[in-house]
């Protein structure tokens, strides 16, 4: 049976589906696509998957009753067998070729232009100064600024948004103004949501106010309606379109403010602590929307965002700047933090003492830099070659109960710790 690649793949896929139908289901979808299944077959595979997830929802767990699992499996296997037995038609080869051309076309037009560029930005106040910050913001990229309060995050954001001028340093907006001083031109492409939003007026519905704002930015006629409908739907706020501003919760007021800034497709969006008053679900929704909107290939934008919610914001950021006392202690790609600090770092909530932990790490004790108590957690700094799997295996082998584990090697969380380990490495 397994004498050609497609048959071999089909058998492998069936075994995977039998073992774990939920995790392997995307494998079935990929198999259909890669082996040129026709549109109808791909549709049936998708709808079967949707049914599978309906069953899971009904059961309230990932364990399907045997009968339901067997029914789904039988249908899935039938689809796989039909596809294996169907010869690839000339029509599907041609469609595939056209699709590849289309794919290449979009891959080629993707761009990451520099929107803002600065070298050694300074801002001096009586009791505080922002010192020598250099950064480059590109379309399609999200850069997050993190750090404790009062360390210069908002000052930096205000400079980039053109709200205040720096005391020293060079900066420019290469996509729209090389010299960085034609503010009429610059602000046509720049959206800014400050920490405290100025309340909207209550005289008109929110939709009308958005239409008015879009018109000011030069979007008129049919395009105005389209732009407003798009942003209301895209941000999931259309059902409040006819409401008044004062009727909205803080979270929705922020989303409307965001809609106001996004309606005219800015190239640079600056957001100062937008997550501060949102519940967790609203935070995730907002961050995912920002990620997808900045990723747009037709209207890509650069996003500069400050927040105290480290993990969530780092999760969607391409670059991160960690500020302390007005300086950028770290300023680079999110995935390179551990390269910079020279160590890996794990945050655990375990049911054992520090001594027991040390014993668990006996086989690589020379690679443990430091174990810090951070009640109820412990933060362990290791050499870079102690990867998460090695670390976790040691805990599991020592039969230590783990309540919580997080690999924070590439999180600026480590800079909040006054740890000797990375200070030594970075020196």
């Amino acid at each position, binding site marked *: 049976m397994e004498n050609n690649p497609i048959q071999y793949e089909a058998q492998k896929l069936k075994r995977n589906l039998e073992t774990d139908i939920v995790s392997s289901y995307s494998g079935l979808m990929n198999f259909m696509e890669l082996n040129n299944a026709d549109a109808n077959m791909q549709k049936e595979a998708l709808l079967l998957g949707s049914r599978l997830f309906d069953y899971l929802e009904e059961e309230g767990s990932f364990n399907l009753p045997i009968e339901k699992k067997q029914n789904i499996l039988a249908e899935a296997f039938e689809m796989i067998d039909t596809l294996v037995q169907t010869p690839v038609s000339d029509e599907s080869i041609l469609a595939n070729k056209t699709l590849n051309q289309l794919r290449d076309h979009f891959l080629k037009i993707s761009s990451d232009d520099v929107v803002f560029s600065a070298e050694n930005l300074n801002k001096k106040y009586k009791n505080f100064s922002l010192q020598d910050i250099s950064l480059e913001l590109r379309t399609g990229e999200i850069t997050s600024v993190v750090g404790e309060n009062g360390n210069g995050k908002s000052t930096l954001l205000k400079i980039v948004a053109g709200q205040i001028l720096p005391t020293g340093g060079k900066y420019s907006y290469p996509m729209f103004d090389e010299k960085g001083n034609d503010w009429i031109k610059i602000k046509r492409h720049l959206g800014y949501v400050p920490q405290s939003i100025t309340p909207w007026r209550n005289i008109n519905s929110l939709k009308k106010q958005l239409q008015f704002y879009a018109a000011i930015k030069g979007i008129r006629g049919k395009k105005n309606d389209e732009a407003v409908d798009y942003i209301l739907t895209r941000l999931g706020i259309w059902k409040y379109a006819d409401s008044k501003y004062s009727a909205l919760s803080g979270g929705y007021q922020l989303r409307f403010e965001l809609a106001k800034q996004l309606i005219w497709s800015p190239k640079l969006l600056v957001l100062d602590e937008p997550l501060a008053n949102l519940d967790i679900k609203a935070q995730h929704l907002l961050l995912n929307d920002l990620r997808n909107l900045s990723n747009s290939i037709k209207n890509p934008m650069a996003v500069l965002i400050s927040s105290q919610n480290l993990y969530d914001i780092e999760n969607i950021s391409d670059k991160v700047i960690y500020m302390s006392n007005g300086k950028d202690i770290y300023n680079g790609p999110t995935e390179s933090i551990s390269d910079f600090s020279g160590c890996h770092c794990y945050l655990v909530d375990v049911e054992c003492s520090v001594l027991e932990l040390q014993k668990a790490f006996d086989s690589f004790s020379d690679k443990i830099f430091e174990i810090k108590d951070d009640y109820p957690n412990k933060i362990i700094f290791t050499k*870079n070659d102690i990867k998460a799997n090695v670390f976790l295996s040691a805990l599991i082998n020592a039969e230590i109960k783990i309540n919580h584990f997080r690999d924070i090697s590439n999180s600026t969380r480590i800079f909040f710790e006054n740890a000797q380990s990375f200070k030594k490495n970075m020196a």
Partner: protein
Amino acid sequence: MPLEKNKAGVIILGASSFPDSPNFQEDTAFFEAKKRVEDYFLDQHGLALNKEDQILDLFDSEKDPNGQDVAITAFIRKIKSLEIKDLFVYYVGHGGFTAHEEAFYLAIRATRDSNPAVSSITFKSLSTTIANCASAMRTFIIIDCCFSGAAGFSFQSGDISVAAGKQLQDDFPSKGVALLCSSSKDIPSLIIKDRNITMFTEGLHLALSKGDPSISNKYLSLKQIHQLTFSYIKQMNPGKDVRPEVMSPYQPVGDIAEMPHFINFAYSDPKADILLKKREIDEEMVKNNVQVVGKLLIDFVRNFDMAEVYYEESILIGVDCFDLEEEKETLDKEIYREKRKKLYVHIMEIIRNILRQNPSLN
């Protein structure tokens, strides 16, 4: 940290002929190898280095070892003032080991094979210069050595990386150093006469300039470049391949051979990948995340519908997706599922039509 445009320095060493060393075979393949590596560093789509300021070309230089060392020292001082953090040292030519001390040396144009210890660049002196001058830089040493059957070749291992690595242990820069090299002493297997290039540099150049589509990272580490070099060597020279070696003996701040440094030219931006985006929507439909599906469809249409036919329709579907989820608790289960199925079929139809567009329309 990835290598930045204009932010690296390169020292190119070696020679294509050795007039005072009859035992060292001259070969234009060495020049071709040097040329390809130089082209990689100058490529405007890649590191775009400035030839005058950022590349020290001592290949085929008439300078003696001391003269080359002086030039290297001055060059490193110059690039330090340009705030350059990454230094590459590339050598192509003949290498060997001195008769008595088994010191590893790199032959240059001035090398006399009767006494290579004083007329070549010894690895020890090179690493001392780098350690003294480039202490704040990450240093990548790339050696493409053809061992000749020269008198004085007394090293027994035949594996250059073992010897070079051993000598690297003694003295090197404080920011970390990594070594990538060809590993054989066998001349015929290292120079590809048909293509007039050394086997190792041909593979290395392909790895650096083509990248690896199977790795979904914008940047590759030296270890990944090493693996990729070997796979290109195997592909280009079936049955005659020689495995290169990578090592990074001194790593005070993490293994620089494991850090993603080199642009992966085969990387394609996932946000611009129409198939990937279609799969994202499919997956969310399978998981019945109806509101997310609505948003992703709007994004998909905005990005990929070149004729802008589905702009309005996608917004209406987005609204329907939100409405349906809001009504979910109040609707009969079967009615809800039937409505959802209709939405899914409609969405799939739109996506299918967008996938059939002709790119020349745009």
